[in-house]
């Protein structure tokens, strides 16, 4: 066999003074990095298999392990850098499309970090959320332009709405891509926190039907797991057109991940590849989308809002406008940093635009057209923390989806090898011996903690701005100032530079 040019990405540092040969690392590494060598009674590592997922590091009871980036240097070259060379090596030896997982790790400008929030000083008071009510409840759905009231009574009731106790939802993560344990964690946490979780295109497993009230059921191009019961089981339906991590391409769940439970839930045979086509083959145009939106509304007797999720692409504003006019109640925009269980590396890193710019453009466009009320706007793709959310809402979002942050909450260490199905944290795998590593109670508790923590932070930030209701921040771009952006970026974001 010709020699491989690929160096291990990481080195395993095992402190022999601390290793007690308990073999916890051996039994925990699904990548088979650690082995106990009984001849020398010590644990050794096959470093080329290490993906730096930290399972062994965190589980090692004596902290004997460190994972280091392989310090071997390539000849310095800014252009032909080591990751470029390694990519070519992988393809030279494997001959395939480079696959990866999670969102892009490229240094794309992070607009969130260039945006700064306002705070009250002297001329109006900041509000202390510990003393005063601070409201972050959010209604998602189409709003009429006006409310008609006669004799103190509402004449026409509101179209169906999703009520969120915080403007945060768990983004689409399908059962199949992630484990049932992870699904249960998300579902339970969403229910406990009064927010929503999203089935992705994985269907709704029987065990989580009880969390339907807080569930958005997705209809994607593969139509996996979709039937009338499914559509009616959630509180909203989302048509997935695109995904930020891989705009323009479909999904592919390999047959080995389609076990008994995935098969039942997705309604496909055990072991068959679950292939979501790149487009919906019944949607080649906006009027087709309208038909599907209304077909879904009919199927649920107009009791549930219908969301349409698209990747943030170049003319996203016009696309969003079309979606609203096609009858969507919610438009979800997934930016270029959106995550995935598996995507071609080049697509992930090069296709789509940042969520911040897409959001600002879409919100502005819908307002210009006077149709912003007709649909709520949900932003996704790289929301990392509560201040990202607050900034997103100030830019014009009604709520945010979090995916990667939720996965990290459940234990994901961003090793980006989701597509191997060997997730050591039991999140992105169907291997039963790995799936049980994620205790849904712990997962749900951690997610609940996160939502609560972020809710508190959002309230603090709102209070600092002298705002006690989230509505007053929505689209309130005066609360933002930018630093270090170009004129064009300021224009698109609709904000002023700091100091002005």
């Amino acid at each position, binding site marked *: 066999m010709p020699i491989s040019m690929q160096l291990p990405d990481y080195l395993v540092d095992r402190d022999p003074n601390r290793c007690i040969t308990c073999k916890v690392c051996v039994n925990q590494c699904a990548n088979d990095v650690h082995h106990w060598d009984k001849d020398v009674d010590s644990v050794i590592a096959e470093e080329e298999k290490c993906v730096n997922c930290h399972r062994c590091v965190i589980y090692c009871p004596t902290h004997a392990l460190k994972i280091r980036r392989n310090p071997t240097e390539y000849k310095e070259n800014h252009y032909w850098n080591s990751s470029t060379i390694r990519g070519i090596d992988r393809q030279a030896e494997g001959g395939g499309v480079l696959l990866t997982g999670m969102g892009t790790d490229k240094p794309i400008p992070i607009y969130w970090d260039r945006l700064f929030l306002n705070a009250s000083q002297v*001329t109006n008071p900041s509000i202390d959320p510990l003393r005063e009510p601070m409201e972050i409840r959010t209604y998602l759905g189409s709003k009429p332009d006006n*409310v008609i009231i006669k004799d103190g009574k509402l004449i026409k*009731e509101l179209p169906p709405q999703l009520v969120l106790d915080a403007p945060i939802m768990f983004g689409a993560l399908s059962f199949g891509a992630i484990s049932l344990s992870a699904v249960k964690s998300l579902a339970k946490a969403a229910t406990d926190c009064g927010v929503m979780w999203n089935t992705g295109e994985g269907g709704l497993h029987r065990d989580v039907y009880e969390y339907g009230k807080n569930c958005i059921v997705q209809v994607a191009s593969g139509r996996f797991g979709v039937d009338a019961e499914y559509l009616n089981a959630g509180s909203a339906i989302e048509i997935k057109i695109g995904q930020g991590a891989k705009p323009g391409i479909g999904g592919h769940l390999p047959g080995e991940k389609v076990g008994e439970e995935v098969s039942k839930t997705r309604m496909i045979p055990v072991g068959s590849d679950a292939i979501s086509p790149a487009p919906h083959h019944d949607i080649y145009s906006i009027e087709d989308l309208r038909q599907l939106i209304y077909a879904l509304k009919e199927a649920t007797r107009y009791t549930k809002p219908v969301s349409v999720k698209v990747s943030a692409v170049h003319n996203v504003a016009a696309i969003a406008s079309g979606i609203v006019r096609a009858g969507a109640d919610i438009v979800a925009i997934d930016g270029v940093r959106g995550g995935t269980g598996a995507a071609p590396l080049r697509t992930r890193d090069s296709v789509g635009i940042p969520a911040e710019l897409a959001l600002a453009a879409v919100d502005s466009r819908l307002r210009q057209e006077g149709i912003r009320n007709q649909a709520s706007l949900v932003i996704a793709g790289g929301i990392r923390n509560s201040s990202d959310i607050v900034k997103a809402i100030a830019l014009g979002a009604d709520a945010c989806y979090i995916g990667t942050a939720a996965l990290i909450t459940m234990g994901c260490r961003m090793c980006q090898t989701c597509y191997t199905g060997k997730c050591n944290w039991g999140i992105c795998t169907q291997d039963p011996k790995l799936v049980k590593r994620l205790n849904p109670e712990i997962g749900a508790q951690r997610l609940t903690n996160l939502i609560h923590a972020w809710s508190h932070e959002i309230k603090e930030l709102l209070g600092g701005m002298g705002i006690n209701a989230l*509505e007053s921040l929505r*689209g309130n771009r*005066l609360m933002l100032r930018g630093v270090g952006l170009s004129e064009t970026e300021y224009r698109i974001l609709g904000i002023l530079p700091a100091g002005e």
Partner: protein
Amino acid sequence: MLREGEIRIPSGCAISGIVNKQGVRFSGRDVIKSIALMHDRSNGLGGGFAAYGIYPEYAEHYAFHMYYDDITIKDYTEEFLSSRFNIAESHEIPTKKVASIKNSPIVWRYFVKPKSEFIDEDCGCDEFVMKIVMMINAKFDGAFVASSGKNMGAFKGVGYPEEIGEFFRLDEYKGYIWTSHGRFPTNTPGWWGGAHPFTLLDWSIVHNGEISSYGANKRYLEMFGYQLSLQTDTEAITYAFDLLVRKHGLDIETACSVLAPPFWRNMERMEPAKKEMYTALRAVYGNLLLNGPFSIILGTSKGIVALNDRIKLRPLVAATKGDNLYVSSEESAIREICPSPDNVWTPKGGEPVIGMLEKEETRDAYQYATA
């Protein structure tokens, strides 16, 4: 220095208002006295008044109070006005020399009716007047419409409010509603148009506070065609009332519950129909919620409404004496002109104080000497 319309300028304020619910008209002396007591709440960079019932002889005409920077723009604007309106009367607004009032613009008054060719089903007289006012304020550099309602007017400028009252000789006017405003801007180029009240048709708003939701309110109102050329809270509040009451047909009280809605947790305790209504109002008009500290007095030809923010971050006191309703930033400012009110109270945050006329006719208060 940038002026209102080019930049947002935070300010603190004093407000005071009086309505006689029987429509009895009385002199502007009282309201001047009341606002003057709160001298320290202003800093001499803005004061103003709105008065209703002051032009009974032109009650069916739109009364335009215009401020001009110079004759050129006055001529230009008048030419434009003449092209759109039939002008029944125009004259300079009478003023008096006051030592501290400097750099006053040319102040002119017109009683007009739109020319019939501009009016149709889609665009009634009010709508037309509103458009014209917005156009002048946005595009006519050096001209500003201070008020445009019927049988009412706004008198405002740079100075302490009592000086502005004296300047405009308001003791010589009689109205059944008077509202007033003393301003404490943190910076100002001293532009007369930027002073309060802000008016639109017969809406007028005096306001103390700084709306932290301004950006959200503004962008929402813009969707409905309002141009917020002044970038002031007062302007936004005025338009919000206009949208909710005039365009969407809500009553004033309901409109108030949009601007200062009940907390969600309080809605949970309402009976279902009421809860549904408030939920719908908040879900639909959430962007109109006025956040941050404010107390406002809305004047209309039919009465006044005083409203605080939901957690009462700015002062507002109300009192009644006979048919008179008084609202003010401070109780002392009420007692200054009404030493022994029947009733004095501090309205709760978000709870409007409404004083509507009980009859349509108005009359002069010959018997009303100030108390």
